[in-house]
């Protein structure tokens, strides 16, 4: 009964959805051609946790690369605009993540990111000194985001040849203009959140951003915030381009309760705020709640009752969402505040995501080791290729001749390998491989390494903690169950439209493995005094006297001359005559 009603409602919703962009276009045409949308997706996860994904998109039809400087900013943050024009940035993607996305329990995220900080930038092909620009850019971004991005230098920067293609328009794929770096040790906290929130047109004063209170956001299992800047098409003909700034924030709340009852979640419980209005500058402000796993409403209870339904293709799957439009006054009801409440039951089994990866260091001792990367293809009958990118710091000296790729016990020859050996203290190893994953299999990539002995000033202040190796990146076109939407300009929810989709039968997916913590041989810094004393003693007493004994020849000395003779000799010396 209920489903039928919602179908009817959905039909009306579709109508509204289709009518909405027209109004946006109409209203934005005479205006300074910029547009802001905000969106929150809430997805109850398989494991019983809850996933909230915020997306804020600012579109601006302007050209930063023109000769005359862009000086008038409205919605687009000026600090980022200046960065784009000063450093001739074509695309910029930066993410700060605290925690590791648990694919086995949570499925795929809308926007993947590795633990720590990740930065990748495509520069315009007009840039001559890419490394210099990159260095300056990282320092500027470090200031903007209050993060340690200034630690990005040549020893952790790579130029991937295939894994990171531009996501916006443009067909320059010369990877000389690409720089990629991760800082796996970066810790993300409120000091990074505040500058991120300041980039929003409404700040955290109105709209969805009022929910972003750090005391709740950092009381979670996973926290990731990102900024993506890229040029996109304005319309389907792609006559004009505009710049897109997308700010995303993903957070997973832990709802574990020991009992078996229904889990309960509400906006107020999670964010300690309710919503009262949309951001007045936003052309669209919506909340989506994923109810796909439960069409009959047996497990889910959403209140206030849903008005609109919408469907979208996300990650190879057709999902159904309840939609709350914050620009409509009716959404807030009579109390003038929206506090969504969901109750549902969860199961504890693990998921079998189509693509899944893990990584670990094998072996023991401080001399050698082996990095194992496992890639699972859980598709029952389709094999698909993946691009594996590994960036390993120079102090793990990879023995590339020990590289093996095996799936189902057989050798799996990669069809493409790009390897750039490291240079001590200058650049890291870069290994990129295109591997075909057979259906329903585990592919294991192993490579041995030797741990380098660092110079004593190169150790971190806490050398016994270990050294981090950033996540491997696995990029893939995964076979899709449903036909994907290839029309990128059609109006669709923001979360489903980030990675451009070129064909209907597959979708793009990126998976990050966990970073590694590797111990290097560490001298005992607390005992330099003892060591100095011991070596000095050994050298002075042991070596010195032994050397003395070995090199000298000993002879019996003549008995000392008598007193008279000595006096005579003194007198002879005074006279200048040779002694007796």
């Amino acid at each position, binding site marked *: 009964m209920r489903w039928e009603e919602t179908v009817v409602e959905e039909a009306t919703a579709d109508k509204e959805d289709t009518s909405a962009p027209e109004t946006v276009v109409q209203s934005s045409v005479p205006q300074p051609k910029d547009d802001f949308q905000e969106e929150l997706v809430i997805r109850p996860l398989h494991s019983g946790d809850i996933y909230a994904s915020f997306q804020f998109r600012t579109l601006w039809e302007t050209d930063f690369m023109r000769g005359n400087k862009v000086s008038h900013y409205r919605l687009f943050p000026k600090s980022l605009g200046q960065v784009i024009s000063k450093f001739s940035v074509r695309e910029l993607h930066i993410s700060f993540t605290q*925690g590791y996305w648990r694919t086995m329990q949570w499925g795929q995220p809308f926007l993947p990111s590795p633990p720590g900080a990740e930065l990748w930038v495509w520069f315009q092909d007009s840039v001559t000194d890419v490394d210099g620009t990159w260095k300056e850019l990282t320092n500027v971004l470090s200031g903007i985001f209050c993060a340690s991005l200034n630690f990005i230098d040549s020893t952790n920067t790579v130029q991937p040849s295939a894994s990171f293609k531009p996501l916006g328009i443009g067909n320059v794929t010369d990877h000389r203009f690409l720089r990629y770096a991760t800082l796996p040790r970066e810790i993300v906290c409120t000091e990074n959140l505040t500058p991120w929130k300041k980039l929003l047109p409404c700040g955290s004063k109105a709209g969805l951003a009022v929910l972003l209170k750090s005391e709740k956001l950092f009381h979670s299992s996973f926290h990731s915030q990102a900024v993506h800047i890229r040029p996109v098409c304005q319309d389907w003909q792609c006559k004009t381009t505009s710049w897109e700034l997308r700010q995303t924030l993903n957070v997973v709340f832990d709802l574990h309760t020991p009992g078996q009852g229904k889990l309960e979640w509400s906006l107020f419980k999670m964010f300690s705020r309710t919503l009262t209005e949309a951001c007045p500058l936003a052309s669209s402000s919506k909340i989506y709640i994923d109810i796909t796993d439960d069409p009959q409403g047996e497990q889910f209870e959403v209140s206030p009752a849903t008005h609109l339904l919408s469907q979208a293709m996300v990650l190879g799957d057709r999902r159904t969402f309840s939609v709350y439009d914050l620009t409509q006054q009716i959404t807030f009801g009579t109390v003038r505040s929206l506090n969504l409440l969901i109750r549902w039951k969860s199961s*504890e089994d693990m998921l079998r995501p189509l693509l899944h990866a893990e990584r670990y260091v094998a*072996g023991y001792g401080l001399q050698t080791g082996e990095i194992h990367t496992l890639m699972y293809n859980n598709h029952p009958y389709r094999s698909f290729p993946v691009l594996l990118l590994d960036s390993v710091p120079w102090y793990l000296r990879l023995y590339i001749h020990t590289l093996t790729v095996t799936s189902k016990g057989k050798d799996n020859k990669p069809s493409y390998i790009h390897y750039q050996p490291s240079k001590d203290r200058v650049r890291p190893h870069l290994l990129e491989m295109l591997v075909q994953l057979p259906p329903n299999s585990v592919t294991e990539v192993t490579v041995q390494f030797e741990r380098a002995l660092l110079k004593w000033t190169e150790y971190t202040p806490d050398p*016994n903690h270990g050294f981090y190796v950033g996540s491997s990146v696995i990029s893939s076109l995964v076979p899709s169950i449903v036909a994907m939407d290839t029309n990128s300009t059609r109006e669709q929810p923001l979360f489903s439209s980030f990675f451009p989709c070129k064909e209907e039968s597959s979708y793009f997916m990126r998976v990050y493995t966990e970073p590694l913590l590797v111990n290097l041989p560490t001298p005992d810094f607390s005992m330099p005094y003892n060591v100095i004393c011991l070596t000095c003693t050994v050298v002075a007493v042991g070596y010195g*006297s032994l050397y003395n004994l070995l090199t000298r020849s000993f002879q019996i000395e003549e008995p000392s001359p008598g007193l008279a003779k000595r006096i005579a000799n003194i007198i002879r010396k005074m006279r200048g005559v040779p002694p007796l």
Partner: protein
Amino acid sequence: MGLLSDPNRRRALISLLTRLNAPICVVCYMAGVAWFMGLAFEPFTLRTYMSENAMGSTMVEERFPAGERALGTGREFSAHKKKAGGMPVDWLVKTMQSRGLEVFTQRFSRRLPFPDEDKERYMVKGTNVYGILRAPRAPRTEALVLSAPCSPGDDNNQAVGVLLGLAQYFRNQVFWAKDIIFLVNEHDLIGMQAWLEGYHHTNTTGMDWSPLQGRGGSIQAALSLELSSDVVTSLDLVLEGLNGQLPNLDLANLFYAFCQKIGVLCTTQGKLQRNDWDSVSGYSHAVQTMMLMVMKQASGRPWGDHGLFLRYHIEAATIKGINSFRQYKTDATTIGRLLEGMYRKLNNLLERLHQSYFFYLMPSLSHFVSIGYYMPAFGLLALILLLRALDLWIQLATPPPRTEDGVADAEQMSSPGVLSVLTPLVISHLTGVALYTLPIHFQEIAVEHFPVSETEAVVLTAIAVYTAGLALPHNTHRLLTGRGTENGWKVLKLVAVLYLAVLLGCTALINFSLGFILALTLVPVAAFVTPDVPKALSAFIMVILSPACTLLFSVFLFQELQEMPVSFLDGWMLYLSVISQGILDHALYGSLVYPLVALLVYPCWLLFWNILFWK
């Protein structure tokens, strides 16, 4: 060193050393033993203290409430264990999942080289179950392990109960910065070995295991829990691991600090600490505790499931609940609180445990002897070997007093050929190789021809090879070079003494206890054996001081120290089982004591035996 560059004084020093060599050696030996015994005297030892700042005092508050419920879970576990006739895998998986952990299993199988009669196992098949509590907002780089063995019979059910109770309690806390792995391992050490090899993807001992599915990064510390009763009187801390490795002393300090804070009786080597160090009985108590630690360490076997972690540079210890019917009782809630406190402190670690000592002896839980204090005891014993070597060197270098018959002197002077030294060396080492390889390879033949079991066959073959080594031809040099020269045995002894010095020195650096015990018996042999001493008596003394008899005495002494004295016959049976366990430890976990004794110490001892029968 001016002393040595002056020829007169050098001569005086040398003559002093040669003249007084024997008395100096005796004094050194006495001093070494006295020094060692003095280590247990409390004023000479240091109090333990926490070196690691991140685990500094009283920053955590223990609130674990659910001890009774944990014991209930333990009873449930025991019922399922009985029903399943082993590890109740399905029940454990379900229980851990309902507590919010990521649960994985690992199957393993291992065929022992020969049946283990102590634990009655030969073909071992089992499953480890472990659940990972993922720390919020941690990138899976660091982990802590809490393990409890699933033992046959009624043992350790309470440990599994407490483990599951802690898992449930820990799951609801928000402060974890490291993943916590709750592991229930079957077949105690074999299961632990399989899990650790799977986790680190190594295979050192040829075991079959299925690869692990989930990991938590590099393991920072581990505790193994053994509880067999609902109420315990005290908790015993076991530190000795594989090959005499010890965890960082801070782990012991942490345990001691929390026992003090919560008010739990704690012991080490099963002995409480006493305050009356100045009385004779108090001192002898400390000596007993320390001697037990020395003997356990010298055995080179893991004395708890934690022992295998140490190979991977993971600090680990076993906590055993002891129920001896004393007045003082501790319930499961208190034990849970103790573990909670320890894990919260370990969770605070910013670096690996490295601040405190790795080489130490403990005469009681609150006092320790560091490497700097105990090494002189060994050094004094090793000095004897160097003095003897110096003496022999001088004897070889200075010409003997001239007699009228110059020709005979010249022959005496001629240095012995390389062969006369090399041959005994090679022969004794081949005997050692035989002792190392034959027992396991010949077990089937032995079982066919003699009415013994496989295990007995292995042990008896080992003893037979050992004894046969004594009867080997000792005067091979006579075949090669005619009759043995006076200098011949001196050169051989010089080589043997230096060999022993290097061997013991290296052993003592890795495993002080083993080195010291071997030095105690081998150094007198090495110092005073010559072909000129009375044969029968010296042969008897040498056999008494040989490595095999040292082991026999150690078995009796160990039982004595544990206050469980045995009759001679029981002791002999125990001795046989200790030998078989030693060989098994080598085959299963890679313990190095058996190969060390068979391949190096025994041949070295044979060289001295050779010298005794030099003609």
